[in-house]
């Protein structure tokens, strides 16, 4: 598959939300997200001991489909580039989209927590009495 061109942040978030929504409808599957330093294809290699220059980050997302699925065009692979000064803004939105999309994770169980507390109280009382 030819590398797809990086999307703008807005497009990336729209597509990422779509990617997650497919997962909410199905009962199995994965979403792969990754981040690494972006080195432009025509960049000059830096000497090893040179101080680290600020660089953009490359964020990728994929549904991990391969082989047959790829031939059927089911593979989705998107990417975007985040400049160092946009990091904070990007990640706030990124966190929002991820939180919305990862709905299959266990929600905070308040019932259980309160039951445990009650249990503790109940358990402590006889001990104190004894």
């Amino acid at each position: 598959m030819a590398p797809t061109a990086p999307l703008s942040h807005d497009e990336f978030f729209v597509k990422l939300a779509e990617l997650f929504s497919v997962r909410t409808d199905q009962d199995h599957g994965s979403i792969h997200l990754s981040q690494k330093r972006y080195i432009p294809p025509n960049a000059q290699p830096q000497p090893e001991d040179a101080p680290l220059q600020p660089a953009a980050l490359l964020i990728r997302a994929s549904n991990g489909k391969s082989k047959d699925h790829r031939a059927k065009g089911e593979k989705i692979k998107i990417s975007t580039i985040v400049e160092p000064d946009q990091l904070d803004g990007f990640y706030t939105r990124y966190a929002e989209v991820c939180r919305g999309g990862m709905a299959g994770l266990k929600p905070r169980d308040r019932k259980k927590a309160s039951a445990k507390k009650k249990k503790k109280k109940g358990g402590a009382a006889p001990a104190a009495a004894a």
Partner: protein
Amino acid sequence: MLYEKSEDWLHQSSLLLEARPETTKITTTYTKTPARRPLSKSAIQKLSDANQPLPEPTALPPRATLELRTYCPVSGVALKYHTTKAAEVGRLISMLGGPLGRRMAGLNVEESGNGVKKEEDEEMIDAPAAESTPVQQTQQAGTGGGAAKGKKKKGKR
């Protein structure tokens, strides 16, 4: 290496990023699996032999897990963290952007404002605390006669 606590993972990952910011990559994988494994062919065969009805598929929602992995192909170091809790997602993603993302981008974490610097300080305080907590937990389990409790918890997961 798999870390039990996200703080430990964050600490080790930031050390790795500091050492090799140019090659290290962070991967986040969100996986959903059906709540129950489908019956094996032999199990279905057994049930049909005994003329018993097949159990109905469960209405349980599918399980999901989130795995964070920091990997450096040059040194071969892989640091992992697993979770199934929705409450952690926001915090984990902000870790990816805040301390880890800034290091990866080559920004100076100390110069980047108070928020991030504070996090760094907290992290340093957290690290030794995290080491001491498992000991406390095991002690509590021992004195409280909590061996059975521990087993129960494992089963629920």
